[in-house]
């Protein structure tokens, strides 16, 4: 694997993870539990779509095959997507959406803070811009986890159920492969193993505050680094890609 190939794959991983997460979040737009929260979640989706666009644009550029970010987003199949499995999980109820978001925000804030120091200037720039956004996202999701955990019996039960469902997919966020190894050596990628202890600490504190118990002995689901996904992703893509694929020569 060349450095260039590794960088393309790494950037796709980040871009796809952002894109699929934002795609899921945007399913809530117009359907939120109340107006202010509808707007807040849409705002978060907008930030994450913006980041996805910047990352996929860069992936296309590094790839150097004359493709655009839209070619990359709309003309790859699920086996060529590298989004983390946690992002493609169905939204479920608002508690599940929120707990998924909290687990990701906690990872993302630490991750992009580190990536902002990358020797790759474009990645560092995108990361630096994201830190402020993710800080807000994390405050939002953490505060709702706390609210649901300490709200009503129903909100607590829903939150615990959501956590149980999403938990098996969280561990994959820290998975590394030869792409990471190569790019860490070059000072481009973030060594994910350095983030794990702090993530666990913060999440444990959050769960404790919300009276939640993390499921024990969970088998960590993985596969996305190799383009192996669950059954959900191809449906997400079928919907998202339908129009460009129906009109492959069209500009929008």
């Amino acid at each position: 694997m060349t450095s260039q190939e590794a960088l393309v794959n790494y950037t796709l991983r980040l871009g796809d993870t952002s894109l699929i997460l934002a795609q899921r979040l945007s399913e809530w737009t117009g359907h939120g539990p109340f107006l202010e929260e509808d707007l807040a979640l849409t705002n978060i989706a907008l930030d994450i779509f913006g980041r996805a666009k910047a990352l996929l644009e860069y992936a296309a550029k590094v790839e150097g095959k004359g493709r655009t970010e839209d070619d990359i987003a709309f003309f790859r199949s699920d086996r060529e997507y590298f989004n983390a499995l946690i992002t493609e999980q169905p939204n479920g109820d608002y508690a599940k959406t929120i707990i998924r978001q909290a687990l990701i925000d906690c990872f993302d804030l630490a991750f992009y803070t580190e990536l902002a120091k990358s020797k790759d200037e474009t990645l560092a720039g995108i990361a630096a811009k994201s830190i402020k956004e993710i800080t807000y996202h994390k405050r939002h999701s953490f505060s709702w986890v706390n609210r649901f955990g300490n709200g009503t019996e129903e909100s607590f039960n829903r939150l615990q159920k959501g956590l149980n469902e999403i938990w098996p997919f969280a561990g994959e966020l820290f998975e590394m492969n030869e792409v990471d190894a190569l790019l860490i050596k070059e000072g481009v990628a973030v060594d994910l193993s350095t983030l794990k202890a702090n993530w666990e600490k913060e999440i444990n504190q959050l769960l404790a505050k919300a009276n939640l118990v993390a499921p024990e002995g969970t088998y960590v689901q993985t596969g996305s680094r190799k383009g192996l996904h669950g059954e959900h992703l191809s449906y997400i893509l079928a919907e998202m890609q339908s129009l460009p694929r129906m009109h492959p020569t069209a500009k929008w």
Partner: protein
Amino acid sequence: MGVVNFEDLFEAKLAKNDIIEPKDWMPDNYRKHLIRQISQHAHSEIVGMLPEGNWITRAPSLRAKLVLLAKVQDEGGHGLYLYTAAESLGTSRDEMLDALLTGKAKYSSIFNYPTLTWADVGAVGWLVDGAAIMNQVMLQRTSYGPYARAMVRICKEESFHQRQGYELMTHLAFGTPAQKEMAQDALNRWWYPTLMMFGPPDIESPNSENALKWRIKRETNDELRQRFVNQTMPQIEYLGLVVPDKNLKWNEAKKGYDFSEPDWTEFKAVIKGNGPCNKERLASRNKSHSEGAWVREAAAAYAKKQNENYQAA
């Protein structure tokens, strides 16, 4: 000081084009009219999120997705300002939402039409937001302060939406044959419903004297409709599209277009609840609201506990 004097003071303010603020005395029928109008407008923004929201997950480019998502968010923001403006007149969000969800309150009928293709997203932005601006621009100077201020911001964003909608239509109209066909089809379906947005013909809806006095309306429905057609025709011609109206032609004498009236029977049917999407729209709002109940309850319970802890400390 008797009530009559308050009334005189109110009338004098209106006559001087002064702004009425929430704390000022106002006649009951003024308050009621405003609550009804502002809450209906707010409902229209909220229900209006649905037809365009229908295309968010299928927007055909990343840029288009960002633009559309931001637009739908703006509409929700408009709903929020307007609900707040209505609340300043002494109603509550719960009361207003209840009226919407039970079907008692009206909202703009245009949103009871479906968005069948991506071109509809362009047509809605270009035509529907365009017509809305024409209807609403005078409200920036309406007599009730909170409403006028909300409308300043809203109109600014609506014109942005209109430009983006038109831009989307240009991509289609100058794109592949299939894209152009999509654009024409959208114009065919949205033309008459858009003309209906200005309300029934003047002979059927005499301009209320109060609406003029309160600076809620300045032009009649027919005048606005005529202005909209005059303004939109050059844009349609530029796009190379054809209006679905054989009678539409320039009238040199009146320096404006002659055009066919929309089908007012259809208009009434849609208002009565028989449009293609009335039931779906209302069902969708009700579903989100009832599925969100536990979230609102949890937030309230949490706030209450926090408050108790704070007081106990």
